[in-house]
């Protein structure tokens, strides 16, 4: 009975994937890579400043509003800050998708593609999307300040990826090659 369910599930998955193909739009990928690259410059300016992130998620603002002792003001503040935080997380999530999309569009033609590196990048991408999804969920449910537990996890992952970058020379090359989206 179990195997029957698995076999039928394989068939259903196949049909779903085939339907995805039919929705798959044939666009000029080269143009979209260039479009991605130009919009990424704009996004990076809006997203990358540490001060902006500190401001959006700052506890000081909340404490200041609490000192006002105005429930109405607190409600407005919570609502506005939640919207801003959600907007920021969603844009970050889109930025992650754009980074991977650009990577895939170039990697698909590389003759020396490394399957292991691709798999690692894929899992890092999944982790990032998962964290963004979690941030959206938590921000919606509890507000933008209910996230301290995620902090340490994101920090650790960031350091892990930092160690995984192959070598400093390659990274330097990247910095000097003028790839869109790199400083």
């Amino acid at each position, binding site marked *: 009975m179990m195997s029957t369910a698995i076999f039928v599930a394989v068939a259903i998955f196949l049909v779903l994937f085939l339907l995805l193909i039919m929705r798959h739009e044939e666009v000029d*990928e080269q143009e979209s890579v260039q479009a991605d690259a130009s919009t990424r410059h704009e996004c990076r300016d809006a997203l990358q400043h540490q001060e902006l992130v500190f401001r959006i*998620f700052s506890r000081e603002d909340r404490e200041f509003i609490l000192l006002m002792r105005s429930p109405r003001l607190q409600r407005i503040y919570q609502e506005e800050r939640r919207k801003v935080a959600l907007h920021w997380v969603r844009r970050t999530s889109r930025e992650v998708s754009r980074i991977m999309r650009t990577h895939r569009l170039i990697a698909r033609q590389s003759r020396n593609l490394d399957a292991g590196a691709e798999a690692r990048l894929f899992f890092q991408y999944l982790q990032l999307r998962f964290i963004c999804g979690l941030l959206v969920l938590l921000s919606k449910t509890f507000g933008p300040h209910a996230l301290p537990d995620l902090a340490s996890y994101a920090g650790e992952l960031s350091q892990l990826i930092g160690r995984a970058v192959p070598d400093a020379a390659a990274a330097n090359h990247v910095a000097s090659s003028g790839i869109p989206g790199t400083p």
Partner: protein
Amino acid sequence: MLTMTIWWLAILLEALLLVRGLPGKLVRQFPIFYSYILFVFVEEFLRFSVYRWFSSHYSQVYWITQFLSLVIGSAVIFEIYRVGLRSFPGTARMARYLLLIVFGAVFAKALANPSGGLFWWFAKRSLVLERNLRIVQALAILTLVSLFLWYAIPFGRNLKGIVFGYGLFIAMSIVQLTLSYTWGDIRLFWPYVQPVSYLLVLGLWASALWSVQPVPEGKPAMQLEDDYEVLVASTRSQLRRTFARLGWAVRQ
């Protein structure tokens, strides 16, 4: 009467596919697919003749031709890989690795569990044998389609039609073969369900392969095409920065 009508309709559609494909460029673009259609076309006539005049041998002829078409059908999957990824060596390389993993896993499962394994020498019944081979085909198509979608490989109308039609045919075969093995009542409907679903697939193919559509060629990639390691380092460093930003957000 209904069975005969469906049968003749299928033969008509196969003939139409061949007539549209053989004189033009389509047969040069998809030689294995058209060989498959030609085989199925001849097979239908053979089965029809045996059914009509030597009905006692129909079952043997059916299963022999069925397995031959299954083998040629597997070559169609190879053609999807060959044509679709011709201009995308990176994705082609990834596809080879993933297909190796899929086939390796299937082989390992068959070795680990010989009584219920996936290979024909262990199979006791033709239905189980065909179903298991169809599942292997389905896994191969799933792998290829996932890669096509992930790497945004353009299909082109012709290849998209072949992939969609053959994938749909395999999915329907799996469902029918699985349920007929566990739920015997489906045998009552099977003589109608299978040919009708096959007619649907033929209709899809006839529509998608009505005329030659160019297979989209991959344009040369951007400045990093020759330096994959640099590309990976760049992507990782961008993802790392995003991780860091999310970290700042959460730490507040």
